[in-house]
């Protein structure tokens, strides 16, 4: 399958890419890893007249640890994050990167591309919404920083202007006593999850001080389970509070029935995923090393 014909432009810097977007207009799209865009173009669901290729921009892929923050270049591939010891300081980032699709797609796909696409089934937004995450953007008017919670507006819709792009993803490193986990339920590796749960906890002894619970693939954007967070915060993380968080997750989502499962099935699934992710996050918050793998049907 061939995409429809388009003009190809190779940007030498992110600034030049933003300028190209403003000059070429609405018919131009950015090509990052291309693992969503190229299949969409081959199916002719996306037919951009111009493609601005970011893959030859130097120094746009990196993972840095600076002043208590993890800084990830927009063009950092999922595989680079998966194998980065710096990124793995926040275990949940490793869970996410190592579980996206398959080896080949992780070798190409980028964190910036995933966030800018804002696919409701994408993994990064769900995971990073449990963290204090800011998106550094660049456009002709200059740079601006947008909290991720304001960046994701709707399905496939972000706060980016047409001629703006992501340059960097900035994540506040979790403090002491913190642990997170991301678990997805998938039918096979290359496909998107049926549902997923990201949980980040901060504990002081047995008491939970901070909790963030975000669910993926069960709404037009990731779903934050604020009532579930409240059920954990200030309480002992035990069977009782976890059950309350599971019930809150079940009630918070309004999933679509589709080929991946019925709405009721998905509600039951997110509830179970919240339990699993919370238990792993708690063990990690207490300093235990726990390997996580997604669950395959």
């Amino acid at each position, binding site marked *: *399958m*061939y*995409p*429809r*014909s*388009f*003009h*190809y432009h*190779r940007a030498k810097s992110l600034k030049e890419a933003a300028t190209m977007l403003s000059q070429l207009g609405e018919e131009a799209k950015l*090509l990052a890893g*291309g*693992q969503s865009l*190229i*299949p969409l*173009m*081959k*199916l002719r669901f996306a037919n951009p007249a111009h*493609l601005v*290729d970011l*893959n*030859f921009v130097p120094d746009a892929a990196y993972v840095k640890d600076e002043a208590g923050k993890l800084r990830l270049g927009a063009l950092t591939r999922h*595989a680079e994050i998966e194998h980065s010891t710096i990124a793995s300081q926040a275990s949940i980032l490793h869970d996410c990167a190592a579980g996206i*699709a*398959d*080896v*080949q*797609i992780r*070798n*190409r796909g980028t964190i910036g591309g995933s966030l800018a696409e804002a696919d409701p089934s994408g993994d990064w937004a769900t995971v990073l919404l449990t963290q204090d995450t800011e998106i550094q953007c660049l456009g002709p008017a200059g740079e601006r920083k947008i909290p991720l919670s304001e960046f994701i507006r709707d399905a496939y819709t972000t706060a980016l202007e047409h001629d703006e792009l992501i340059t960097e993803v900035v994540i506040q490193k979790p403090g002491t006593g913190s642990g997170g986990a991301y678990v997805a339920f998938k039918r*096979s*590796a*290359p*496909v998107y999850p049926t549902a997923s749960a990201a949980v980040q906890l901060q504990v002081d002894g047995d008491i939970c001080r901070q909790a963030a619970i975000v669910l993926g693939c069960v709404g037009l954007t990731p779903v934050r389970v604020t009532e579930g967070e409240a059920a954990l915060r200030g309480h002992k993380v035990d069977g009782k509070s976890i059950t309350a968080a599971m019930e809150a997750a079940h009630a918070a989502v309004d999933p679509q029935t589709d080929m991946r499962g019925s709405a009721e099935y998905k509600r039951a699934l997110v509830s179970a995923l919240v339990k699993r992710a919370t238990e792993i996050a708690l063990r990690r918050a207490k300093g235990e090393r726990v390997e996580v*793998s997604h669950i395959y049907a």
Partner: protein
Amino acid sequence: MPEAIEKVPIRVTVNGKAYSASVEPRMLLVELLREEFDLTGTHVGCDTSYCGACTVLMNGAAVKSCTMLAAQADGAEILTVEGLEKNGTLHPIQKAFGDSYGLQCGYCTPGLMLAAFQLVSRNQEPSETEIRKAIAGNTCRCTGYQNVFKAIQLAAHNLKGA
């Protein structure tokens, strides 16, 4: 009259041989290999980035060549199944797939061998889980994967001893 689309000049090294080409922007890497360079060992299976039959190595990393533009491979080193054999001698991965009956119809085999190549070139003693994870992006409808899995174990073992 549709507007003329300018071609993109590229240089790539495929299996150690330098090529230059002038490609339409929409040409996919797999089509460059198969149709321009006549390297038809790389197969197109699903053509939707699912099955992995089109897997090749780009600068040592496995990629699905149906989900990359040829223009994106400019300056890269590509390894396809044709580059595994050296001077008439099969690569240990190829030999192991034969010895372990790791193929039946053979359609997915080039992609599986290249996915295995990335694994064993970075990990001399892959665990069972690591092997399964390494080929999770490759679909085989004949073997049921057990013999593929044994072939990669054998290849890793033989390469380590080599």
